Structures are given as structure tokens and as C-alpha cells.
């Protein structure tokens, strides 16, 4: 393909010149960067700084199309004699007109696209200050189930698109930033070394409350996010796309004088919810703990929860950005300094980010783009979640009655007489700190080989690199109470991880429009190479000198290293055919991909897709346009690194090396291959009431086959399990998004949005017996994969000794409601996020019941006592709770200072000054009795989320923001 076109070169067949200016309706401000194209041809240009353009067009009558992000497009028919045209564009508050990415090198107008691609703009992301980018997406995308794993500062959230897609393979969507596949790896800090949450020679570190690294992005850099929710849209991303694709585009420079923005925020965080504890009478206390506690009961009630998590830290964020440039060189530069305090002393999150995006034109045919982003993130999260060593705060509080005084005197912390640690000592002395330095760089070169009236041909070469190094320090000094337990006083863990993702692609896109203008055919094809390497070295040192934390100064040192190296190669081709007056869009494409994670590294797996959409203009008087769409496609989920290997687990005896078969007893599979998802999506998009409302409706079915499973084999073979591609799983769902502008006037806007999503999963084929895939066993509630049942069913025991379904982690449905009202200089905005149904296994409550310390625990006839007795007699369901919630996610009240005032007070260049008061997660309505219904002890999980074991409690935040544009 490359060589066929490389020799040709064509000139535009232009015969006359049209000039003009594009402005915003109402404001009359010039709109630079507006695309001006000749309908039915490939001719086009962009407006300059002053909103002006000049374009060579064919002689005769033509129609010009004016398009700009955030504005409704306008078609203007010109008779042959008109050479000057001025256009004003209306705002597109519902984003009906945006372009949507449909492939590696192509995009299409959203009004034509055949999938329900969610688009979230910068304005929508920026409504309330956000710790990390996922927070800002909660409640904004129908079909995206976005849940925090805990309330700890600095991230750790899971994004799940359209239900469960795997059991043992990767669970996260593919994140692509400006063409770079970026890492969302969660490297565990290894707090397990002190919590012993997971035992054995090779403990699994999933309970360490790790941060998944997409948290590093600066939300203020983002221009827009497009979310491809399933295979029918994401097929072109191949075998990494089964969980969907999140395409992030950062802000680019625009021609014109430098435009600065400075945003300063101040705020604080506040404990959103407490578990509470039992109020002990003297009699209860002595009955339960013995007469020796009587003097302690005199202390009255000491609220340790408030003591631990009651901080209101000063938090701040400073954003600075400038964009500008000339017609040939454009730049965007931004900087961020942020510090979020933690509600527990000694915890918090700091982030600094610097970005430079540069665009350079070399003549009219070559455009180069370079994007660089440098991030430092520092997270201090303390030690929370499950543990077996009496470390984690909510593992200790349940057994610590409220009359115990644990305050230090003269720097000496009293030992907790009821448990293995004093939480105040643990808070002050035990640390888990994480430092991440990250560089994300992208470069692309676009070469417009042909730009003529009938065809265009462009090559894009794109490369990117995402590298981060993560350093973890977990430290528990010798004097901490629980350190006496294992015979080794003091623990220091040092972790160093380096992850490098790189990818490189060559893409060609050709459009052809016949002389009749009957259709536009866009052909794109490309080749993509990607590599990932991950190295993580952890050293656990035990038995330390007082005050020393270096890992060599220890009685016992245990280092561990894991490495991964993955490379892949893919080819793709896609044809988009737009015809019938741009009403019918037909798309077909395919990607062939191989990866070194597959058993056969040379075999290409093929992922096809096809879609069609048809627009019906004015089918009814209230209906401006109705688009019917259908799409089908396949994508994959690669085996994880190492699944194809059967290995020894090297060990030694007093330094003599030995090859013994691994204690995990896994028989790898040399024929392992990607899981395959087939998705069918059908829906319609309607524009109503003169584009004052839009309605998107989709139904989909995702079927995943070749799921990677572990088959239990006869243990007398020397192996416990064998990996294989088997089972099938299906998700069916419906998504609705409704956007309304009940009022749209110059000085009074009201935009209202509602989303609804429901997803139902079922395991449709399971060639192995039903098995548990998470949780702590059926007596405590476990997730069971069983044919014919929901993939997220929770099973438990009954008093009769049976094991039955007692809950389901998947919600019945999710809805969100947002309203934004702009009135004069005021703006008021609120977002409600509602999850109906979905159960959580509340083991924190079981711990409190074990400690007879739950608020409703009293005598034998109390509710707490009844619950525990019922559980002890076998009734697991007591601790599986409905975790429906309605959360007030975001609230903002903003005020833009009047221009007259601004020009009097501020320097003359100042364009706008905004003041805002905003809050996040301000209130939660829920019947769930744990601290937060959004919880996952095991971090990001395919299935086994929603297990509540001693999490970091949730917080709400309040911020004041001042923002100046000049």
C-alpha cells in the first residue's frame, strides 16, 4: 500500500477562492480552528486566529460545512458568484456534533457513528476538583461501573465497562493517551509483609490496597475522553480491548496569542462515615472482659475512630496552563501542584505534573505532534485492609472497647490489652509510602500525501513511551506492639518497580469521493508494534535496629524479583463507507494480532467488526433526527504473562540451590490463547425538539468464549490445577442516556442529563465443576462460578449445611442525574449517582460482632448477638448486605466576575475570573452498615470485588476555587 501511493502526487483542482469569518452566535467572538470543508469533496481548511479562512473551491455551486468542537455544525450553500461568507455557530451543549474516534487513524462525526461511544469533555471532567481521573468519571458514563476500592488518598479505583468480561485474565480497560498505550498496572506495596493477609511462600499481594497507575494523570490536561465499551467498537484495538478502551486526548495548542489559565484551589477532606461502636455499661464490660476492666470503664467513651480518622487537612491544588502559537507552531504547556491531605494523620497524596504538547507544521503537508508529560506522585496510605497480624485499624477497633485509653504518655504508647496493637501507635509509627516518577511521551508525524478534490491520502507515524518507576517503603519499627509476635522485631520493606510500555505504529488513511459525490469511502490500514516490560524488586527485612530502616541492617533479609516482557504485533484494516447524503455509514474492519503471552507467539488472532448506521432526518415534527445503528465485533483478552509456562520454584537449603516443582502446583498451558469476546450492539440516537434534547438507547450482548480457566486436576498427578481456554460467559444489558436543555438562552442555561444502565451476566458454559473464585470460603461468603448463574453470584452456607446463592455483587441498575444551571454569572451544578442493588460481604461487621463491639450489640437478645449466633449456626447470609446507594458525587456553585469589575481590578489582559465552591461525595444515602458500600479488599477484580474487610474509611471533600484566564 505504501509504495502504490508513494509515487503519486496530485494537486487540488481549485478554480475559485472563497473567504470569510466564523464567529460564535451571540458573542460574536471569532472562532479559530473551525474546520471549513467543501461538502462532497475532500477539500478543506481551518480558520485562523481571527476566525478567518480562505479556501479554493471548485467553480459552480458548492456547499461549505463549518464545524468546531463545542458548536453545532452549519452547512452553507454558495451560488457560483459568492466569494465571501460569514457564519456564526451556535453552542452545542449536548455534544451532538463532536467527532468520534473509529480507528487508529480515523474518526467520524458522532451523529453518524454506529456505536454508543461515550464522550466526556474537559468541562464535564472539571466540574469539581478530583483526586484522580476515575473519580471525575463516576456517574457520567452509562454502562461504566466505576468504584473506589477504599477511601485511601491517591486513587485505587476500578472501571468496569458493561459487566464481567473475564475470570482470570486482565480486568482493566485499555487506556490510550494521544496514541500511547499507557499502563494501568497496580504494583502492590507489599504491606502484606507486616499484615500477613496472605500466607505461604509466595503470598498473593492483592489485599495491599495498591493504586492502579491511571491515577497519575492530571485531569486538567484532558481535552476529552472517549469510551469504547465493548468489542463492537473496540475490535480495532484487538486482543487488549475486551474490557473496553478509554481513549484520552490531551489539550493541544491553538494558534493565537498565549492564553493563560491559573486555577488555585483550597479545600479539605472530612471523614464521611463512621462504623460506630458499642456503648459499654460497667456491668456489660465486666461480664464480657472480667472484673479487672472495671477501672478502665471509668474512662468513659473514647471515640478512637474519630481520633484516627477525624483530621481535616488543608489541601490545595494549583493548575497553570498556557496555550498559543502561530499557524505553523502551536503549544500547550501545563503544570500541576497538588496536595490532598488524608483524614488519618500521616496519610495523604501529592502530585506534581508537567506537560508540553507541541504541534509543528512543515509546509502544508507534514504535521508533527509531540506530547510529553512528567509526573511525580507521592502516596501515603498507611496500612489498611485485611490482615492476620493485628495491624490494620479496622481489624483492631472491633476488639478494642471504647473505654480503653490508648493515648501515649511521654511518647510511650500503652499496649492495647485487648488486641495485638495500639492503633494510635500504628498510625504514628507504621508507614506505607509510595513514590512514582512517570514519563509519558508521544510523537506523531502526519504526512498528507494527497489532498485533492476527490481523494486524500495521509500517513501517520506514531510512537509513544510510558515509563514509570515506583518506589515503595513499608516500615514498622521494632517498638510497635504487634512486632513482638513473630519473633523478629521490626519490618522494613523496600520495593522498586519499573514499567515501560512502548508502542509504534504506521497508519495510512485514504478517502475517496467520486465526482458524483455519491459517497465517501475511507480506507485505513496500519501496523502496530507494542512492548511492555515490568520489573519489580522487593526486599523484606525483619529484625531491625532501633531507628534504622535500611534493608541491609536486619537480621533476616528476603528479596524477591518478578519480571515481565511482553511484545505484540498487529495489522489492521478498516473501510468506512458514507453514502446516501451522509445518512448511511457502513464500516467493516479487522485486526490480526499476535503476542508473546500466547502459547504460539507466531500465530495471529483475527478480530473482525462490522457496523451500520442510518440517519433519518425529521421523521416527526418533534424529532429532528433519528439514527438507527447496529454493530458487531470481536475483541480479545490476552493470557497473562507466564500462563503458558510450567515452572519449578527455585529454593535452597542453606544456600544449596534446588529445583522443586512450584508450591502453587500450576500446570501452565503451552497452547493458551486469548479469550474472545463477541459483542452485538443495537440502538438508536434521537435529536429532539430543535436539538434541545437527545436520547441514546442501546442494547447489547457480549459473549465471551475461550475464557481462561483453571481446571482442577487429580492432585496425584503432582499438579493442582491446569490452565486452559474453556468456559463461556454472557452479558446482556441496556443503556439509556438522556440529555435535555429545558432552558437555553443567552443568560440562562439549564442542562440536565440522566443515564441508566443495567447489565445481567450469566455463565453459559462451564466445562469444569462450579468453583469459587474469591472470598474467604463459603462460610464467610464466596464468589462462585457456576453454569447457568450470574457470574457475580455470592454463595454462602445455610443452617442446614447447604451452600446456596445468597447474593450478587452486580447492581440491578445504575442511574445518574446531573443538572447544570447557568444564570447570568452564576453556575450551579450537581451530580447524583445511584446504584440499586449489588451486595457486599461485610466482614468488618463480622469482626465487630466477634468483638461484641458493634453498636447494636448488647445482651443476648440484642440484634448483634442474634446475628452472630445465627452466623455461628451456619447462616452466612447474615453478613451479605445490600449495598445500594445514592451518592451526591459532585456539587459546584460558581460565579464569574462581571467583565466590568474584572477590567477595573485586574490587569487589562485578564479575560475571565471565576470563583467556585465545590464538593465531592458530600453525602451518601444507603442502608449498608459498613463505612462505605464502595469497597474492594482485593483491589481491582474480575469478579470478587465487594468484600469489605477493614478498609480505609471514605471521605468527602470541600474546595474553594479561583480561576483566572488571561
Amino acid at each position, binding site marked *: 500500500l*505504501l*509504495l502504490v501511493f*508513494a*509515487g503519486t*502526487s496530485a494537486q487540488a483542482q481549485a478554480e475559485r477562492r472563497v473567504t470569510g469569518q466564523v464567529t460564535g452566535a451571540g458573542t460574536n467572538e471569532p472562532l479559530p480552528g473551525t474546520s471549513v470543508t467543501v461538502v462532497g469533496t475532500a477539500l478543506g481548511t481551518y480558520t485562523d486566529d481571527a476566525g478567518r479562512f480562505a479556501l479554493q473551491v471548485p467553480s459552480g455551486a458548492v456547499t461549505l460545512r463549518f464545524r468546531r468542537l463545542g458548536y453545532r455544525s452549519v452547512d452553507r450553500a454558495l451560488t457560483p458568484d459568492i466569494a465571501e461568507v460569514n457564519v456564526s455557530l451556535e453552542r452545542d451543549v449536548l455534544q451532538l456534533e463532536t467527532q468520534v474516534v473509529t480507528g487508529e487513524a480515523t474518526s467520524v462525526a458522532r451523529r453518524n457513528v454506529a456505536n454508543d461511544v461515550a464522550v466526556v469533555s474537559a468541562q464535564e471532567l472539571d466540574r469539581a476538583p478530583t483526586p484522580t481521573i476515575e473519580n471525575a468519571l463516576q456517574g457520567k458514563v452509562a454502562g461504566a461501573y466505576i468504584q473506589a476500592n477504599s477511601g485511601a488518598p491517591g486513587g485505587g479505583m476500578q472501571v468496569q465497562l458493561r459487566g464481567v468480561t473475564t475470570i482470570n485474565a486482565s480486568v482493566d480497560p485499555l487506556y490510550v493517551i494521544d496514541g500511547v498505550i499507557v499502563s494501568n498496572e497496580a504494583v502492590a506495596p507489599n504491606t502484606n509483609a507486616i499484615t500477613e493477609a496472605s500466607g505461604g*511462600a509466595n503470598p498473593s499481594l492483592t489485599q495491599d490496597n495498591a493504586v492502579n497507575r491511571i491515577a497519575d494523570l492530571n485531569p486538567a490536561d484532558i481535552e476529552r475522553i472517549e469510551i469504547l465499551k465493548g468489542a463492537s467498537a473496540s475490535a480495532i484495538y484487538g486482543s487488549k480491548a475486551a474490557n473496553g478502551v478509554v481513549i484520552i486526548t490531551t489539550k493541544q495548542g491553538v494558534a493565537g496569542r498565549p492564553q493563560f489559565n491559573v486555577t488555585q484551589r483550597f479545600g479539605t477532606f472530612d471523614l464521611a462515615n463512621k462504623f460506630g461502636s458499642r456503648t459499654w455499661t460497667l456491668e456489660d464490660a465486666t461480664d464480657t472482659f472480667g472484673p479487672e476492666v472495671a477501672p478502665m470503664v471509668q474512662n468513659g467513651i473514647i471515640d478512637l475512630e474519630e481520633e484516627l480518622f477525624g483530621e481535616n487537612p488543608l489541601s490545595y491544588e494549583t493548575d497553570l496552563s498556557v496555550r498559543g502559537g502561530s499557524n505553523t507552531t502551536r503549544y500547550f504547556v501545563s503544570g500541576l501542584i497538588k496536595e490532598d491531605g488524608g483524614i488519618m494523620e500521616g496519610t495523604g497524596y501529592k502530585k506534581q505534573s508537567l506537560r508540553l504538547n507541541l504541534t509543528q507544521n512543515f509546509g502544508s503537508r507534514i504535521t508533527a505532534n509531540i506530547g510529553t508529560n512528567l509526573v511525580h506522585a507521592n502516596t501515603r496510605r498507611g496500612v489498611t485492609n485485611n490482615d*492476620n497480624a493485628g495491624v490494620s485499624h479496622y481489624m483492631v477497633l472491633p476488639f478494642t472497647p471504647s473505654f480503653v485509653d490508648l493515648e501515649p504518655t511521654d511518647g510511650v504508647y500503652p499496649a492495647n490489652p485487648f488486641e495485638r496493637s495500639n492503633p494510635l501507635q500504628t498510625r504514628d509509627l507504621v508507614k506505607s509510602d509510595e513514590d512514582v516518577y512517570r514519563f509519558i511521551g508521544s510523537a506523531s508525524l502526519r504526512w498528507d*500525501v494527497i489532498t485533492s478534490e476527490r481523494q486524500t491520502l495521509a500517513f501517520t*507515524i506514531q510512537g509513544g513511551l510510558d515509563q514509570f518507576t515506583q518506589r515503595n517503603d513499608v516500615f514498622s519499627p521494632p517498638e510497635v506492639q504487634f512486632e513482638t*509476635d513473630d*519473633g523478629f522485631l521490626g519490618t522494613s520493606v523496600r520495593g522498586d518497580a519499573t514499567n515501560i510500555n512502548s508502542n*509504534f505504529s*504506521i497508519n495510512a488513511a485514504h478517502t475517496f469521493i467520486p465526482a458524483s459525490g455519491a459517497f465517501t469511502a475511507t480506507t485505513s490500514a496500519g*501496523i502496530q*508494534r507494542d512492548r511492555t516490560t515490568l520489573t519489580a524488586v522487593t526486599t523484606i527485612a525483619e529484625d531491625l535496629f532501633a531507628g534504622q530502616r535500611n534493608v541491609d541492617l536486619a*537480621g533476616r*533479609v*528476603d*528479596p524477591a*524479583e*518478578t*519480571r515481565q*516482557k511482553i511484545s505484540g*504485533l498487529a495489522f489492521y484494516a478498516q473501510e468506512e463507507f458514507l453514502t446516501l447524503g451522509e445518512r448511511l455509514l457502513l464500516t467493516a474492519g479487522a485486526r490480526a494480532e*499476535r503476542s*508473546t503471552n500466547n502459547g504460539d*507467539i*507466531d500465530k495471529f488472532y483475527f478480530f473482525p467488526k462490522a457496523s451500520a448506521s442510518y440517519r433519518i432526518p425529521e421523521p416527526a415534527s418533534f424529532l429532528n433526527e433519528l439514527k438507527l445503528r447496529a454493530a458487531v465485533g470481536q475483541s480479545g483478552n490476552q493470557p497473562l504473562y*507466564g500462563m503458558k*509456562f*510450567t*515452572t*519449578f*520454584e*527455585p*529454593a*535452597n*537449603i*542453606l*544456600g*544449596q*540451590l*534446588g*529445583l*522443586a*516443582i*512450584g*508450591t502453587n*502446583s500450576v500446570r501452565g498451558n503451552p497452547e493458551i490463547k486469548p479469550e474472545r469476546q463477541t459483542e452485538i450492539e443495537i440502538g438508536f440516537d434521537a435529536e429532539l425538539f430543535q436539538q434541545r434534547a437527545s436520547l441514546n438507547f442501546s442494547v447489547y450482548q457480549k459473549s465471551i468464549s475461550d475464557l481462561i480457566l483453571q481446571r*482442577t*486436576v*487429580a*492432585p*496425584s*498427578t*503432582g*499438579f*493442582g490445577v*491446569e490452565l486452559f481456554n474453556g468456559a463461556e460467559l454472557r452479558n446482556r444489558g441496556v443503556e439509556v442516556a438522556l440529555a435535555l436543555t429545558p432552558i437555553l438562552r443567552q443568560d440562562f442555561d439549564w442542562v440536565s442529563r440522566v443515564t441508566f444502565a443495567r447489565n445481567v451476566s450469566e455463565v453459559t458454559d462451564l466445562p469444569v*465443576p462450579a468453583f469459587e473464585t474469591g472470598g474467604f470460603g463459603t462460610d464467610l461468603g464466596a464468589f462462585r462460578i457456576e453454569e447457568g448463574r450470574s457470574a457475580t453470584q455470592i454463595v454462602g452456607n445455610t443452617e442446614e449445611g447447604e451452600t446456596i446463592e445468597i447474593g450478587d455483587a452486580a447492581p440491578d441498575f445504575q442511574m445518574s442525574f446531573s443538572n447544570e444551571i447557568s444564570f447570568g454569572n452564576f453556575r450551579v451544578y450537581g451530580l447524583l449517582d445511584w446504584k440499586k442493588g449489588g451486595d457486599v460481604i461485610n466482614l468488618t461487621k463480622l469482626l465487630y460482632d466477634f468483638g461484641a463491639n458493634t453498636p447494636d450489640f448488647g445482651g443476648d437478645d440484642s440484634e448483634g448477638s442474634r446475628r452472630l449466633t445465627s452466623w455461628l449456626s451456619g447462616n452466612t447470609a447474615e453478613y451479605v448486605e445490600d449495598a445500594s446507594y445514592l451518592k451526591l458525587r459532585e456539587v459546584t456553585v460558581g460565579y464569574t466576575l462581571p467583565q466590568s469589575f474584572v477590567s477595573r481590578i485586574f490587569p487589562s489582559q485578564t479575560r475571565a475570573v471565576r470563583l467556585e465552591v465545590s464538593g465531592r461525595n458530600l453525602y451518601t444515602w444507603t442502608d449498608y452498615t459498613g463505612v462505605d458500600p464502595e469497597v474492594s479488599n482485593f483491589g481491582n477484580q474480575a469478579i470478587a470485588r465487594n468484600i469489605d474487610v477493614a478498609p480505609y474509611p471514605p471521605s468527602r471533600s470541600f474546595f474553594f476555587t479561583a480561576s483566572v484566564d488571561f
Partner: protein
Amino acid sequence: MKLRTLGLVLAVPLLGACKDVNNPDLNNPIIPETGVFENPSRTTVQQLAIGIIIGSRTDQAAHIRDLSIIGRDLYNLDNADPRWVTELLGNSDFDPGGFGGGHWLPRYRNVRTANILLNSLATASTEVFTSEEISAAEGFAKTFKAFDLYHVWETREALGIPVEVGTTVDDLQPILCSDAALGAIAGLLDEAVADLDAGGDDFPFTLPPGFASFNTPETFRELNRALRGKVAVYQRQFTTALTALGQSFLNTSAPLEEGAYFDYGIGAGDTPNPIFQSLNTFRAHPSWAANAQAGDDRLAKIGTGTNRVASSDPIVQSNRTILNYPTATSQIPLITNKELILLRAQARIGANDLVGAASDINFIRLNDGGLAPVALVTADAAITELLRQKRYSLFLESGSRWVDHRFYGRLGSIAVESASYEVHQTYPIPQDEVLARGGTASCQ
């Protein structure tokens, strides 16, 4: 022309970069798909030999722990998991999918490792190894294979066990009933002796310090015969047992603790002594001290500490701490001289040599317990005294109390905590094994 050049410049590096290498696992050494290291190096053979010892070591401490709990020598009062009390002490079902499924997979895993060594040795080059060395290594591998299989037999006895591991995960080997299984294990040990006898002066590998007395084919033969004698006792072939024990390292002039040991270390990649690591929750069964004869020196194996009470049932409690394994690097025996003397007494009782048996038993009473000799005139009395001496001399060194009481049909004489407790007859066949065999796993 310029464009064509540019196209080539771009295409060449990309296509050049398209070759992927089929890297081996970066984190662990690969097990060859065939299960054979063709023409193995001396290093590979050395590492496989140590790997086999590591594999045997993996389950040894847990084996001793669990059999001692069932045999009422030990409690594990770990409130994080009540099953140490409920399941092992027979207060609830012995769950074939839970604790009851234990002591099976780790042993067969190691049989697989031993087979990898054996199959690799079959392809070994005489350029690299002498044929004596190959033979010696085979004798070593077979002896350990028999050692692991014997320990599976201890837990399943009458239910039977497979005595070989198939080549693939679907190649299931028959479950042999108790006698046939012991016969196969005995046969393996005898094969190993033939290999060791043809094994020349040295192994082609170095063994850890715990095997210092058995580090040549000739001395390792004595360890092999010790195991053969133990197996023969449980086969009730007492003459064979006495012959084998006669060729073992049994020696009443040598220290009682002479023997083969598993070593433990605190270095990276090594394993600290698991019993030492659990001393917080381990307590001696109250009957261990209560039933001891006054003045028994072996009472020094326990101390007195915090009383621990089972969360599931306060009837289960003890304050008698374990002093056997004082450090993280304390060795745990495979088999020792004192056990061999007691096994000889056991064989002599079986062979109706009560005088010989009494002499062995009294030797242990005197030299290990500091106790005066007793007269043993009936076989029944001799068995009772033998069981007592084994209990105190081999405390937390084997699971012999349970195994021997079963051997003599005396499980009923082990006192249990209350009527709702019982002494298990055997471990069940693990649930996964039964399921993989289509729901039935009876022996043949």
C-alpha cells in the same frame, strides 16, 4: 523518488523489529514439556537432587504437626482457623475438600520431581557422568520417591494410594490398596539399593548438612535400609524388617539422635523451621505430660506458658509449650537411630522375640528417658510400653502415635476430649482426586 525512499526508511526498521523471541519464563526455571532434561548437566542433576529434598521437606513439618494432633500429642490453638481443633480432632467431619485433603499433593508433586531426575538421568551422557554416578543418583531419587509415598500411605492406609505419577495430568495411576501400596514402596526401596550398590564411591551431587552421615552411595544405603525396615514393620514382615534394620545405621553404641535430618535456614529462598514459627499457637496435649512417668527426662521437651483455649470449645486448652525446636534453623528428622531401635523392638515383638524387644525398649527407657528398666512378659504389655516409649522419644519427630495405634488396632485407647470428638481412622482421599476419577477412588 524522495517519497519512495522515505517509505522504505520507515518500513525497514518496523519490519526488522517484528521478530519476537520465544523467551522462557523470566521468573522461574521451566519444567521441560517432556518432563525430561535431555543430556542433563551436572549442575542440573545437583539442583534436582536438592529440589527433591526441598520437596520432601515441604510437607514434613505439616505432616508431623497434623498426625501429632490426631494422635493427641499436640494442639494447634490458632483462633484464626478453628479447623485445627474441629476437623483434626474429629469434632466435625474430616473434610476431603479442606484439611482432610492434605498431605497428598505436595508428596506427589515431589514424586514428579523425582521422576524428572530419573527420566533425565536415563538420557545422561557418559561424557558427563560415570555410569556409577548415574546409578547412584537413581538410587537416591528412588529412595526419596519411596519416602514420600510412604508418608502418603501413613495418612490413607486402608483407603490405598497411587504409587506412581503419570506423564500427563490426565494419566491417572491406579490406587493400590494398603498392602499392595506398601509392597510397591518396598520394591522401590529395594530397586534403589541395587542402584546404590552399583553407584561407586560418590554421588554426582553434594547433599545438605542434615545428610552428612549419608553422603555417599554406601552410607546412603544405610538410610535406605532404615526406611525399608520401617516399611517392612508396617507390612508385618518382621523378619525382613529385622534384616533391613540390621543393614541400616541402627547402632546402640552411637548417639540416639544420629540420623538424617531436614535442614532449615533463614536465608533468602530458604525456609525457617515451620514448627518453630508456630510455637505461639502450638501447645502439647495435656495428656502428654499427664501420662508421662515421673522422672522422665523427656519431659524437658515441653515447658509451661500462656494457657491457650480453643475459640470453638473451651474444653480444648493447654498451657504446655513446645521446647523441641528452639530456633528457626532447628533440624527436623527424617529418621533417627532411636526410632530404628524402637522399630527393631516393634519388629521383635512381631517376631515373638519379647526378650530382644524388652532389651531395646529398656535401652531407650534408660538412655533417652533416664528411667529404670521394666519387665515385659506379654506381647500386649510390650506393645503398650513400646507405644509409650515411641510417644515420648519421637515427640514431634514423626506421626507415629496415631500410625502405631492404628497398626495395633488400638485407636480406641487414645483418650479424646469429650464424646463429640473422635480419633480419625485415616485421612479421606482428597475431594479433587475423587472428582478427577469420576466420583470413585476405591483401591485395587
